[in-house]
């Protein structure tokens, strides 16, 4: 035990004096989680996962503008109303083009009057049975941010179209109701003979006959937090930082092997297993600190910059277990790299390339579901994917330990395989030395 503790203390002491190593292990993932989360938050705005900011300029100031705003506020839109005395259509266009708002809506003057006129005209007939010449329709002007994604643009257009159709339908029904009542009154038909009940038509037409219910599968698990970039990125970039410990681990092993240190260590009454265990234990501690740092950034710093706070509502022991198993996998990969590579340059190049690749295909940078089919199939090979899936199951889906046993099993298997390969390589090097 004394020897393992001595090995752990030595590794931590060496790491403490390795400023470049500390920057890579702690500062890099800290910066990445902040930057990437802020960037993804902006992407969410452009894809409609956040409330879309809509600026409305009502030059008409009539009922049409009020009705339209009421309809739009039912959806996922954040309405901002501009003062018509101070702004005009050119200002709206500039604001939306410049990205200050995603959508701009302008209601020209006399829109309400034209709209009512058009609604009344529908039920007017001259004595010859021909309709009067149609009047100009009221036009609602719509502007989009050029960077807005096509999907969101279509959704907002559909929402606006539906709002306008609803307003128009209400107006038509009001007119129809009035015309019917006038006609019945003109024909001296008693109320008891009227084919329709005494409620007005708009209200009647507004009664829903069908309803839409969004199902989310089994009952939502307790502790599940709605998806947001913070809940995705904090565990993702913590994992990325943890797997980057493979490079300093490999570097330390190579330095010992290429100097007289390894010869001295082999001449000492201590098993190589004890030395490697001490190294792994030290870096598992480093991985835990990395996760803690990134989680604290998510919980403490993010609210200050306008992001949601990172939360782990329940299943904290399962989360810590995931961190531990991910750390084991990362450390054993570092030991394998140290045995396989001949120089620090080799280890840092191979290590960085493999970790970044595993992170990319594992869903750290882009969610797996957003990748092409081929990449989705490859993602199951990435240890970072296993760790990230386990975190998502716990933090986003609110599942408990049994749901992540398969991912933990894969991480443990990865640890066992890389540790075994490292042992074999050590034996080969020993026989060649």
């Amino acid at each position: 035990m004394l020897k393992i503790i001595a090995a752990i203390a030595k590794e931590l002491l060496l790491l403490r004096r390795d400023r470049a190593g500390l920057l890579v292990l702690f500062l890099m993932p800290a910066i990445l989680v902040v930057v990437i989360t802020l960037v993804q938050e902006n992407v969410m705005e452009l894809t409609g996962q956040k409330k879309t900011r809509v600026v409305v300029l009502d030059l008409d100031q009539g009922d049409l503008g009020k009705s339209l705003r009421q309809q739009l506020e039912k959806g996922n839109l954040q309405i901002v109303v501009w003062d018509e005395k101070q702004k005009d259509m050119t200002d709206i266009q500039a604001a939306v083009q410049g990205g200050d708002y995603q959508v701009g809506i302008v209601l020209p003057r006399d829109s309400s009057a034209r709209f009512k006129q058009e609604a009344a005209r529908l039920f007017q007939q001259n004595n010859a049975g021909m309709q009067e010449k149609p009047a100009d329709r009221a036009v609602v002007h719509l502007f989009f941010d050029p960077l807005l994604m096509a999907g969101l643009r279509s959704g907002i257009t559909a929402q606006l179209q539906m709002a306008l159709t609803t307003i128009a339908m209400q107006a038509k029904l009001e007119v129809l109701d009035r015309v019917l009542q006038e006609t019945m009154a003109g024909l001296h038909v008693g109320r008891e003979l009227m084919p329709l009940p005494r409620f007005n038509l708009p209200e009647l037409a507004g009664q829903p006959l069908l309803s839409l219910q969004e199902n989310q599968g089994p009952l939502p698990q307790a502790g599940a937090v709605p998806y947001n970039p913070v809940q995705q990125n904090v565990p993702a970039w913590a994992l990325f930082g943890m797997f980057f410990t493979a490079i300093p681990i490999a570097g330390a092993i190579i330095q010992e092997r290429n100097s007289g240190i390894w010869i001295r260590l082999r001449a000492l009454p201590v098993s190589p297993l004890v030395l490697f265990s001490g190294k792994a234990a030290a870096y598992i501690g480093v991985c835990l600190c990395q996760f803690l740092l990134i989680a604290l950034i998510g919980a403490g710093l993010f609210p200050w910059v306008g992001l949601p706070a990172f939360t782990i509502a329940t299943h904290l022991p399962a989360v810590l277990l995931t961190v531990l198993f991910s750390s084991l996998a990362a450390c054993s990969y570092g030991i394998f790299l140290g045995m396989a590579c001949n120089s620090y340059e080799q280890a840092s190049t191979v290590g960085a390339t493999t970790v970044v690749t595993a992170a990319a295909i594992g869903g750290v940078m882009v969610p797996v579901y957003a990748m092409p089919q081929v990449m989705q199939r490859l993602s199951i090979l990435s240890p970072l994917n296993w760790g990230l899936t386990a975190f998502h199951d716990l933090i986003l889906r609110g599942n408990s330990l049994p749901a992540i046993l398969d991912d933990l099993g894969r991480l443990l298997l990865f640890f066992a395989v890389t540790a075994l390969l490292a042992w074999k390589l050590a034996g080969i090097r020993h026989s060649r030395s």
Partner: protein
Amino acid sequence: MMAADVHRPEQRQGCALWAASLIKQYKNTAHPALNDFSLEVRQGEFFGLLGPNGAGKTTAISILAGLMPPDSGTVRVMGMSFRQRQHDIKQLLGLVPQDIGLYDKLTARENLTFFGKLYGISGRKLAERIRQNLAFVSLAEYAARPVATFSYGMKRRLNLAAGLLNDPQLLVLDEPCVGIDAQSRHLIHEQLRDLNRRGTTILYTTHYMEEAQELCGRICIMDNGRLVEQGAPAALLRKSGMSSLEELFLHLTGKELRDP
């Protein structure tokens, strides 16, 4: 060339290190590094192992210190075999490798503390041992400095201090004075002689003849993985009629360059 005497493998009184018929061939090499190599070092001896480059000195040291097994042959340290009592042997054996075996980023004291704990020494005993060893190699005032700031001679001295942490009965040194200045070399020689006087058996490899002549009570000259000649330096010179050990060495091993 005289063949070495082969001793029976019974435990001999006063025999610190005994090796018989060692053979070791590395993969993808044409010739064995050790080819029927035998050696006996008595307790309390200061024994020199000489040979040109590629003679097999480092291979011999590695096998004798238990760093790798031979392909065939037997090694006994204080009558014990590595196969059965590796841990016990390593407790009483000290190794000073040819390459500096120290962590540059750690201080002298931190290096010795780590290696001392791997010997199972701790607490006050370790602190005292470190203090003694640093004083032994005249590095006491540099204990708190990182090894990276040391000169090469200082690193060599600290390398020696690390090999003495367990107060070894048998000290194996692989060219410990390569590339250092005369003052550091002189200090190391003095301290090794002092250790030997106090009873530590020393196996010392070098290819500096004057070093061997100055320090060693007995030497063996090896070449091509075999023991070529052994005995006290003075006796070897008398027997051969050569005027210097270097002349004897060149006579036995040849003057051709030993490039790999």
